[in-house]
């Protein structure tokens, strides 16, 4: 079983929600980044999602985009991320997940990328601009190395498509809470419930809800329909304001 699933299920077995914080690699700067990761890990999160920078991040909202483009300008690249993770292999309790866009991975070389992920202790990958139809070649490269390609589904994903995604999916399923880009929102649409229930039914791996999440109170309404929460923009803003990740995690623990 993929470590991400294991970690999330550890949480749910304890009656807690799996927690999946997102930070762009190298944010807010190279050293601080690893400190934030350690704090998050110490807070007991299930999966740490690390953003790989891309010049044209079409699925990102303004907060994530700005933070990630700053890291890109600072010279953060896939080599740095994978090398540094490799150095720290085994130091994190949480499972590690890389998130990004296809082109940098494609230029890196998907086979090399898959191998290097394994070597770095990365167990999952989210590629925002790969739908089902184009995912075959990537899955083929990742699977031998035990890296899961995490499916993203959302309010407009039909049950049929969910089923196709569910076939040999592993790790967890990322349920996107809104039709839109990442970013904090005050409230989440009611109709999520129905779709979440559908996803719960279709997938036999944990369901994580992401996009627009800033506080656990937003999620009480979805109890039983989701297993984990992903939060990015809220965490980034919090850090940008000079606060620590540990602090941010308090209401979640």
């Amino acid at each position: 079983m993929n470590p991400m699933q294991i970690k999330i299920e550890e949480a749910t077995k304890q009656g807690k929600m799996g927690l999946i914080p997102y930070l762009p690699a190298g944010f807010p700067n190279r050293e601080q980044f690893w400190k934030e990761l350690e704090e998050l890990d110490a807070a007991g999160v299930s999966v740490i999602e690390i953003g790989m920078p891309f010049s044209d991040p079409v699925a990102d909202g303004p907060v994530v985009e700005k933070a990630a483009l700053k890291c890109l300008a600072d010279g953060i690249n896939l080599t740095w991320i994978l090398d540094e993770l490799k150095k720290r292999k085994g130091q994190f309790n949480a499972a590690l997940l890389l998130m990004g866009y296809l082109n940098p991975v494609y230029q890196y070389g998907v086979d090399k990328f898959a191998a290097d992920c394994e070597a770095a202790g990365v167990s999952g990958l989210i590629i925002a601009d790969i739908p089902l139809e184009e995912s075959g070649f990537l899955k083929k490269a990742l699977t031998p190395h035990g890296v899961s390609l995490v499916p993203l589904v959302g309010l407009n994903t039909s049950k049929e498509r969910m089923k196709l995604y569910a076939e040999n999916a592993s790790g967890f399923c990322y349920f996107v809470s809104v039709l839109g880009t990442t970013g904090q929102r005050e409230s989440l649409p009611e109709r999520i419930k129905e779709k979440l229930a559908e996803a719960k039914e279709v997938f036999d791996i944990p369901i994580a809800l992401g996009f627009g999440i800033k506080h656990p109170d937003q999620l009480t309404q979805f109890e039983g329909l989701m297993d984990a929460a992903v939060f990015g923009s809220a965490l980034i803003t919090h850090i940008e304001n000079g606060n620590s990740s540990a602090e941010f995690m308090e209401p979640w623990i």
Partner: protein
Amino acid sequence: MKKGYFGDFGGQFIPELLMPPLIELEEAMETILPSEEFQTRFTNMLKENVGRPSTITYCPNISKDLGLDLWLKREDLNHSGAHKINNTLGQGLLAKMMGKDVLLAETGAGMHGVATAVAAAMLDMKAVIYMGATDIVRQAPNVGRMKLMGAEIVSVESGTKTLKDAINEALRRWLADQETTHYCFGTAAGPHPFPTLVREFQQIISKEARQQYMDRNDGDLPDVVVACVGGGSNAIGMFHHFIPDESVKLVGVEAAGTGEPGCDDSAPLDHGTEGILHGMKTQLLQTEEGQILPSHSIAPGLDYPGVGPEHAHLQATGRGDYVTINDAQAINAFKTLSQREGIIPALESSHAVAYAIEHKEELQGKSVLICLSGRGDKDLGILDQIL
């Protein structure tokens, strides 16, 4: 060939959340597009609103000056001044029949934005246009036209503030508003089915031009067919019906920017590498690490680091020749066509015209049919600043 692919290029590299509207669009292409209602209305609109067929014009003075036969396919005479309207009316009508209320578009030169605003006004829809802040300044006349027609203009402040970034933002907006909104993509690029859909609406250019040329040349075909390549819509429209004519050389002209070493340009087919951007696998200007490079051309409509996948394919198979023209050569062509024939071309189209001027030696005695994709009124401000 895999669905949505042209050889190795094309595909649908977009977030899952954009798949439903793309699938909806693919379905509309299979059901609505071939319907008699659509075809009749569209054909009528092209004739009665756009003014099609657009004529072909022989250029007696430049032909004499250069020692070749220069012909122009006059897309600049279309309503709103460029080939873009063929596509926006097609997509607009399709969207209307799909039950959408809003036409969303990105624009570089503003011609596609204007053409989308026209389609929206005509079809009683709303237009929302994303345009890079840099382009808003350099193509001010088109911004004025869009606003006048009631379009909402969104200034894009991210990245290079040009076409590429406008596409990013428009994709984000589409993601959010997909239920009411059709993304009226402006060129034969982006995720499947856009490259095919846009080609479908632009192939009228070569359908007409091929017949018109033959009618005026005793059934002969031209030796060379030329078009500028930004995203590639006017070029694919101009090439399509000539592709089976093996004797006809097809030349796509990319923008070399200033042509100075180390400066940005817009010629991914010339020296780009294979990669993925805006939903498609194609040739891109990018770093070795897959970061997209900023592009530059004096012609805002060519100022794009990618290119439609079918052109990448035509290049790979050798059917299309792709060359570059720099800013200065384009300006020279702009002035030459204005002064010698009384036709002010768009700076984009000037790149295609420049091909004939710069390659006149090898073209001696040949007949060259160029797609004059748009008129240059919008560009006088840019030229004013330079000249």
